[in-house]
């Protein structure tokens, strides 16, 4: 599966804009992602491995909130990380 990497994380992924990940849930995919790019973890997951409160994960353009990390995924799904609009 492919993850779209948002602008906020790209300096922590050596500029990569997408990553290929494995897993059967969003949580497993994100864990695989942060294994590939450990620096990105601090802006994605907290110390307990939960998704940060201002990060939102979409699968095929649908939000996974409130299930989030427990959301099942399958091959071919597109995962996007979007940060919630919090300033204006």
């Amino acid at each position, binding site marked *: 599966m492919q993850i*779209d990497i948002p*602008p*906020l994380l790209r300096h922590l992924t050596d500029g990569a804009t997408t990553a290929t990940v494995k897993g059967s849930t969003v949580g497993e995919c994100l864990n695989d992602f942060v294994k590939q790019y450990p620096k990105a973890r601090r*802006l994605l997951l907290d110390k307990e491995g939960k998704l940060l409160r201002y990060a939102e994960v979409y699968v095929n353009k649908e939000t996974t909130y*409130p299930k989030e990390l427990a959301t099942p995924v399958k091959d071919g799904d597109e995962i996007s990380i979007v940060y919630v*609009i*919090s*300033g*204006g």
Partner: protein
Amino acid sequence: MKGIIRKFLRVNLSDGKIGEEAIPEQVEVDFVGGRGFGIHYLYRELAPKTDPLGEHNKMIFVAGPLAGTTAQAVSRWMVCTRSPLTGAFARSVAGADFGAWIKFAGYDFILVEGKAERPVYIHLTRDACQIQPADELWGKDTVVTQEWLSQRHGLNTRVACIGPGGENLVKYAAIVTNRRTASRCGVGAVMGSKNLKAIAINAERNLQLHDPEGYKQLVKQQIQTMMASKGFQHHREMGTTGNPENTSELGIFPARNFRYGRLDDYEKLVGEEYLKRRIGEFGCYSCAARCGKVHRVTKGPYAGAQSSGPEYESIWAFSGPIENSYLEATIAADQLCDDLGIDTISTGNTIGFAYELYEKGLLTKKDTDGLELKYGNHKAMVALVKKIARREGIGDLLAEGTMRVAARIGKGAEAFAINAKGLELPAYEPRGAKSLGYNYATSNIGGSHGYGYAPQEVFGAPFPRKVDRFAEEENADIVVFNQNNGAVGEVGIVCVFARAWFPHLYNNLLIAATGIDKIAEHGYLPRVGERIVNLERAFIVREGFGRKQDTLPQRMLNEPLHTRGAPGEGQMMRNLDEFLDRYYEIRGWTPQGTPSPEKLKELGLSYVVKDMAQSQKAKAI
């Protein structure tokens, strides 16, 4: 009567005449409401080159068609006028309850014209409108003014007023309602120039909708959708205080008068730190988010300061420009701006400019009334806020805004003035978010993030497509999209945050409220948004604006950004000309940035064609 009442109130302060006027159905269909009504009437009523602070300027206080209903986060309101800061179009948006009360009084908007001979306020009820003396309010801050009017007219009174900033014609004075402000573009100074201290409204909740039962069902859906939205939950918890961390990570939190992309110690200003000082919260009419977070300072030089904020922009305004990371000073300065009625963004930006002038030796201690404007000196910053609002000493100069201060000082000061069309840039560094940057350049109100916000760059929103935030003319389509889309949101004057929580319901709410079935047609609202932006553009073209004014501060064009370790090091706005060519082409404008006759006719704005031809002719001469 429906969501659109199709009626406005005209108040002439010169001769005291007050009267209701009907809004033609075609205007409602073409512009829907809110900002659409604002620019439609301003364009028709205001003669070109009207002095923004003269008797003939007009102010439109407009609510949207959803304001005052049970729907969530849709009761914002705005002021449209000609800006004394920029000379361009001004649209300045505020929250709280006042928008709902405009509607409860029985109007879509209030149009104020003329100039009173002495200080007055307008008192409006469902049955009457009176112009009342306000001599004893003149000189009072916005807290005292609102309390005084509530005592006189009852707790059900809702007020929009100015403080000393507006009275003193600070070019970026704000209008304050409760603790929310319509702050950009100097709309408070226009009010002050008319000797209008306040508008106070007493009215009972009373609105009729085109389809009340359908609307009720939509509101149910809206609340369910919102509650299930992570964006809503985060906003309810943190307001906008979480954003400094985000923008600092991106390297777009402007520091040291826009030389750097973040503060060295930005961790001191993140949301968690504000949370420690939070003592309460408040919200706008019919909005469960209650995103206004109240903070209090309990120790240090600002002990006792309490602000209904600061929100993201104000956190930045009193930290980034002067490299201040003492959080308590941001609370104190924010409170002062609200009390005295001046715009936090322009105030903070102008103060940052003054610090750089001091650094460069273009201002000295002799000029600054003895204040030492060294980066990090937050006490001088707080002192300057007061001086600006009261036009005391150096404050009298700084109250003119960066563009005029630079012109007055000369000696190359313009190179450090960070504005677009005279409106001070806000809390997003253009070189690290270039669609937002080019929006500043082309916006019809000047350097405003709200005019064409770029969530694609700041939050990674992949709509309408993914965006490379360092790309230049390749993103001209995104700038056009964001500006038109912003105008769509502002026909209903929905909260900019909230629209993301129920995107598919906004159109349906508008239809159920107004009965304008055409809104259901694919592309109808985007076309309304485009119509609004084009008419606003025509307004400023008529005032002499064009390609030359669609530009950015010299710093963005000539100096590389330094990000202190964040991404974007060395970025500059390299392709302004190429961007403008592409942007004008997509917009259907001439290479000089004038809406073409074909585009105007296509948008149903044929009556503007002649004006544009005359403006072009005048420029050629």
